[in-house]
């Protein structure tokens, strides 16, 4: 019996769906109890909310540079401008944070003195509660998307940084020596040896930071903003509308998974040199 339904490659989607259904069932169960519904909302109401977001009303977004409005986007439903803002913030934060983390990680991993000197300061910065920085970012970057991007970058940066740093240190000494003997200069070593060797480290950190980029953007919006999914969540929380809060979380989650899938595809392409087990064909 178990063998028949045992998870395998072909029934993977089925099982994933089963878990999803199970989660919704448990959630629904919890929400039958009013106390539970108060904290977790009701799945059906949440889904209705999402449906409304994507179908009802209309939204508009002014894209402006400094004081001048460049153009105004009009959308067929309420959620789009908010979603667009949050996604923009997230993607920017993810990109900027990753690049900074990569750059700093490589630099410090390759210059032992700089790393020894700056080490405590980087660790100190990492242990700083970012929420406190939000007002400061608002001063520096304004109330628009850039202050949220900055907050999310502070989350993404450190994760990528620490992994790149360690990844570079883990390069096999023999392979490194070989590349050096083959005449690679510093920048070639960087691009042809350190980076490829650290790719799995980098991607591990990217999987973590996709999520945290969303968290950073949403928390940034949550701490103060005029639009974005975090703003919607904040509004809903203030009026005890827990269903909308969870609707916001659910929508974000879907997009986080989408972004993660993209990262996964890139990873797969870059890592195709790695040995995998079971490479024989079964006849």
């Amino acid at each position, binding site marked *: 019996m178990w063998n028949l339904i045992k998870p395998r490659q072909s029934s993977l989607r089925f099982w994933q769906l089963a878990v999803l259904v199970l989660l919704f069932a448990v959630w629904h169960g919890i929400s039958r109890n009013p106390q539970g519904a*108060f*904290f977790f909302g009701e799945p059906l109401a949440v889904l209705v909310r999402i449906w409304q977001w994507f179908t009802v009303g209309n939204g508009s977004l002014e894209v402006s540079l400094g*004081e001048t409005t460049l153009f105004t986007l009009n959308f067929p439903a309420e959620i789009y401008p908010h979603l667009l803002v949050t996604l923009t913030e997230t993607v920017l934060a993810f990109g900027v944070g990753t690049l900074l983390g990569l750059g700093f990680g490589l630099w410090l991993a390759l210059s032992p003195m700089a790393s020894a000197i700056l080490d405590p300061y980087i660790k100190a910065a990492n242990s700083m509660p970012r929420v406190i920085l*939000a*007002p*400061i970012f*608002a*001063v520096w970057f*304004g*109330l628009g998307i850039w*202050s949220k991007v900055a907050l999310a970058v502070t989350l993404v940066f450190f994760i990528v940084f620490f992994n790149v740093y360690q990844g570079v240190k883990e390069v096999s000494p023999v392979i490194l020596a070989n590349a050096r003997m083959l005449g690679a200069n510093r920048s070639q070593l960087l691009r042809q040896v350190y980076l490829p060797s650290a790719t799995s480290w980098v991607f591990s950190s990217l999987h973590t930071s996709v999520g945290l980029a969303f968290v950073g953007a949403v928390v940034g919006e*949550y*701490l*103060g*903003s*005029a639009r974005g999914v975090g*703003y919607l969540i*904040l*509004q*809903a*929380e*203030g*009026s*005890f*509308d*827990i*269903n*909308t809060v969870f609707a916001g979380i659910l929508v974000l989650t879907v997009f986080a998974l989408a972004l993660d899938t993209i990262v996964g595809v890139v990873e797969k392409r870059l890592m195709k040199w790695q040995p995998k087990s079971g490479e024989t064909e079964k006849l």
Partner: protein
Amino acid sequence: QTLEKPKVSIAVGGKNLFYYLPLTVAEQLGYFKDEGLQVEISDFAGGSKALQALVGGSADVVSGAFEHTIDMQVKGQNITAFVLQGRAPQIVLGVSTKNLPNYKSLQDLKGKKIGVTAPGSSTNMLASFVLAKAGIKPGDVSYIGVGTSAGALSAVRSGQIDAIANLDPAITMLQQKNDIKVIVDTRTMKDTLDVFGGPMPAATLYASGAFIKKNPNTTQALTNAMVKALKWIQTAGPDDIVKVVPESYMLGDRALYTAAFLKVKEAYSPDGKIPDEGAQTALKALQAYDPKIAGKTIDLTRTYTNDFVRKANDKQR
């Protein structure tokens, strides 16, 4: 009259609180637009964050508590309130019926846990103020920050706190389920006068002195819109409010919302004027509560101006 700055960014800490209802009304009824203003209202996790946005220069105007203007003068920031939204703080102190079913007097709160929205906030101030009058020192109770939303409700209901100082709609929700017994209710003028010994200005619109000086017409336009909203609220019934306020504020429970509205209606300023003795009251309250302000001399005239409100009222009539 041309506006110096038609695009105005307003910061507010908790937009959907009843505390800031006039702002929402003005926005929803299009009063700002009528004045030729293009306002963007950014919502913050708390009043102090909104204030920081103002000081940092990313927001032009804040919809926030009057005390901030006094606080900021101590910090060397020149901030002026120019229109009043609420004349009573709307804060309610209640005791948990679960933990203290036999509550008699304030003395019973000694050694207890009191939930406030955040330590150091105006809810904390009110609680300290009330308890101090009953001879209970701040060290005799412990204050726990529980926020204004779900956390506050659950803290009371699960018995983690013994008393709570909070705002609507949380308070009305607790009252409806009989979770708390109200002991001080500054949504009413009577209790406000009782507690503070005078009218207590609550929510205002304030901006930096420099902004007001530089943009008098813009400030006037903002004031006009707010005063219009305040007048509208005076005459509005529950049905009107329900129509105006965004659906999402209704918490899926219109009855609750209208009930809460009727409770706080008295607390809204009828004309937006900041009473002079009100400023005195606020200063006294702060000095009693915060040792850092106690010793300082404060020039109250710089913390507020009624010039704009006066003009707005003239115009309305």
